[in-house]
């Protein structure tokens, strides 16, 4: 267990005592005078100056959030004012969301961080007010004249610290925006806040380091090309051990029909690598003509958590590489925020990709019309289409040693609208599938608590609190239905929920969707499958 979080029993006892959701005291208006408190487990490390420099961001220096002096630039006020003005002029959502909130409170108890911490500043409306108060002071007539009477306040170093704390205590999951009568999306405000904080050099290592590494090596983990191929090859060996089938992935191969891009976590982190094995089995099963790229070896994009320019820079590699290799279209692996970027940003930022073709599934002939401009298809769409057209030989019994539930990832559900495809696949590859309570799934799904680049060790206290609403729903089906596997289509989920389940629901493991597909696939020439991709026994005792 992490030294950055109390023991689960202690945390639970504390929550039982506090009844966190009800804890918010009516502090009147003194929230403005309550400074943020930095204690172990509730803040992320600052990046090294070289990392900040490598991304061309401002004010590289050595500093730490738990120190008094953050070494802000002398003109920090002017920078924020100017930065805010630019963004208000460039982004209607931001401007509108600064103005129209009526503080009805519908969002208040919808945030996983609020539910897990009870900290009133984690109510989405409050998170936004932290910024609106400065906006009113700087940009509205009422604020300029009536000051704190209308909830306006000046920017001070304390306010900067507060922004840092709470805009890095938001995972941009958009759950609040589902409930807001005006669709106010805190993710938009957090994105802007993080961009503004970059102007002062206030940011976190766990986001900037991967972004910088991704730019240099092609993936967040900083894996160089030779290592990337070696790791994938070792998974090929594992596949052979389990199934007796040898798969032959290629890398950087020109003339392949499809470029396959998945988050690098699928190649390097447990349990994501079992999902990677599932992909490769699937492609072998249907004979897909595909290639990996070591240059575009990252589906994820920590630029989304940094700012629109870094996001564009990292994302550009996908089209750049697709064009160089001369593929027809791009297939994307299981990842949450990757798909927010691919679905809602990529074509706008780096398109038009007119050198690619409208994606057609070469096995079924299905034209993926809905991706005719971006030319990128989600693997769940691809696989669902294959199953629907009876192109896969599946034995769902091979997942009978699992009782599973499905965690919708924030980004694919609320930033893309992918709800049914994974469920369709799950029903075909597994027999024991139970849904969590309806207010915790689909468009109302809860974040894993560590999204948007907050999945770092030193943040464990807040992460486990943020994961609590999800964990609580899993616990419900674990107790009622005996669920022991939480399946997700997000690489960050696979890592962070594993930690969260160990913490809150020991005994529940986490998997990707295609790991289960891989288990169920009846491969040509396979040996008798008595273990799954994790090399766990299938325990297929016949019960007759």
């Amino acid at each position, binding site marked *: 267990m992490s030294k950055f979080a109390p023991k689960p029993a202690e945390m639970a006892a504390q929550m039982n005592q506090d009844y966190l*959701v009800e804890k918010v005291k009516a502090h009147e208006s003194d929230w403005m005078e309550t400074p943020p408190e930095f204690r172990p487990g509730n803040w992320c490390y600052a990046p090294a100056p070289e990392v900040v420099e490598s991304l061309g961001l401002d004010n590289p220096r050595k500093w730490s959030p738990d120190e008094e002096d953050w070494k802000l630039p002398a003109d920090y006020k002017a920078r924020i004012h100017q930065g805010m003005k630019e963004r208000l002029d460039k982004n209607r959502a931001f401007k509108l969301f600064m103005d129209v909130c009526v503080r009805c409170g519908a969002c208040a108890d919808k945030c996983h961080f609020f539910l897990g911490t009870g900290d009133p500043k984690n109510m989405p409306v409050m998170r936004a007010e932290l910024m609106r108060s400065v906006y009113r002071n700087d940009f509205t007539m009422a604020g300029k004249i009536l000051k704190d009477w209308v909830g306006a306040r000046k920017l001070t170093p304390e306010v900067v610290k507060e922004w840092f704390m709470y805009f890095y205590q938001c995972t941009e999951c958009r759950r609040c925006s589902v409930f807001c009568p005006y669709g106010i999306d805190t993710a938009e405000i957090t994105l802007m806040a993080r961009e503004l904080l970059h102007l002062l050099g206030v940011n976190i290592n766990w986001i900037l380091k991967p972004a910088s590494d991704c730019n240099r090596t092609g993936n967040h983990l900083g894996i160089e090309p030779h290592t990337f191929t070696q790791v994938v090859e070792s998974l090929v060996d594992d596949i052979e051990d389990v199934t007796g089938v040898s798969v032959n992935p290629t890398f950087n191969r020109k003339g392949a029909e499809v470029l396959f891009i998945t988050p690098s976590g699928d190649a390097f982190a447990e349990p994501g690598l079992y999902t990677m094995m599932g992909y490769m089995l699937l492609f072998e099963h249907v004979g897909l003509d595909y290639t990996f790229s070591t240059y575009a070896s990252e589906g994820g994009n920590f630029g989304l958590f940094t700012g629109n320019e870094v996001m564009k820079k990292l994302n550009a590699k996908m089209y750049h590489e697709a064009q160089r290799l001369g593929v027809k279209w791009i297939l994307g692996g299981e990842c949450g925020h990757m798909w927010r970027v691919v679905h809602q940003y990529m074509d706008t930022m780096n398109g038009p990709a007119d050198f690619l073709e409208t994606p057609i599934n070469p096995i079924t002939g299905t034209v993926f019309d809905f991706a005719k401009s971006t030319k990128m298809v989600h693997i769940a769409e691809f696989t*669902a289409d294959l199953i629907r057209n009876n192109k896969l030989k599946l034995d769902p019994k091979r997942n009978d040693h699992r009782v599973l539930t499905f965690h919708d990832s924030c980004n694919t559900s609320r930033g893309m*609208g992918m709800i049914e495809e994974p469920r369709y696949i799950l029903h075909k590859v597994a027999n024991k599938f139970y849904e969590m309570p309806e207010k915790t799934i689909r468009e109302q799904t809860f974040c894993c608590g560590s999204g948007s680049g907050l999945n770092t060790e030193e943040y464990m206290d807040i992460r486990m609190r943020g994961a609590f609403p999800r964990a609580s729903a899993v616990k419900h089906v674990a107790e009622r239905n005996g669920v022991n596997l939480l399946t997700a289509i997000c690489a960050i989920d696979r890592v962070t929920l594993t930690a969260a389940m160990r913490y809150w629901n020991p005994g529940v493991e986490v998997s990707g969707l295609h790991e289960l597909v891989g288990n169920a696939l009846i491969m040509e020439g396979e040996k008798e499958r008595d273990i799954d991709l994790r090399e766990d026994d299938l325990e297929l005792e016949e019960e007759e």
Partner: protein
Amino acid sequence: MKKIITPFVLVVLLGLIAWFGTAGLGLYTLFGVVLPYGAFATFIVGFTFKILSWAKSPVPFRIPTTAGQAKSLTWIKPNELESPSGAPGVLARMFLEVFFFRSLLRNSRASMVKGPRLVYVSDKSLWLAGLVFHWSFLIIFLRHYRIFAEQVPFFVPLLEAVDGFFEIVWYNEIHAVTLPGLYLTDALILVALTFLFLRRVLDTKVRFISLLQDYFPLYLILGIVITGSLMRYNLKVDVIAAKNLVQSLVHFHPDTSIQVGSIFYVHLFFVSTLAFYFPFSKLMHAGGVFMSPTRNLANNSRAKRHINPWNPTIKIRTYAEYEEDYRDKMKAVGLPLEKE
């Protein structure tokens, strides 16, 4: 307490100012003509300005909140309301959002019970109170066309008939014909406003987030409703005189000789204050709700390219640069190269 009490005192003061300004000081032209004109002009100009200022900022990315299945494979049923693939779905989504507050309809209340465990129960009270308030406000406003328009428009008697449904039952025997019937909306708006106010004060979360300017319009609108009702049900004013004054204003020939009872001027002053205050406040959600990019855009960004007018030019790390840095390592594991 300051943020709850202060705006209340402020609204009471405003009412007293209008009362004494007319009854005491005889400033009928100020409260009957000058201030309403000023407020109305501010409202029109301010509202327009605000809408234009929002419209001036582009929508760089297509960011609808998808709250349902997107249009993807043909055999998967898309949810056109929650994840619209085109204009019809967007229009339907916006219509339900604007007229029926659809997002609020799914509101729930979370509570932590021993375990710890989180429990969610559906909570439609805010939706209902919000809906009742806004619709009542609209209907009352439309009923005022009896006074705003020279010829009473067709919809006014219609609304009055429906809204005054309880008239006969309520008043017939006791007050005979002298008292007008109670309008349902007059009662409903009072109930809704009271609920919204109590919710702000009693729900600790909402109380925490509330600002002074969240209470002010509540009091002000309550003031408008109360003075309006008083005029109708108790302190009778000369309705003909009131209509003549309003008509003279509407036709831009203000008749400064008309004097109505002071309660009328209090009502009018409250309304003027609301109109004046509107464009500078959160009340602009009335215009903003139409412009929210998370609601009014189709979820079709993979099928149709969305243009960002300020799409920045970014220097990327090209494949050539990458190969340059890693050529030897790539060669060693047999990766194909552009340059040997």
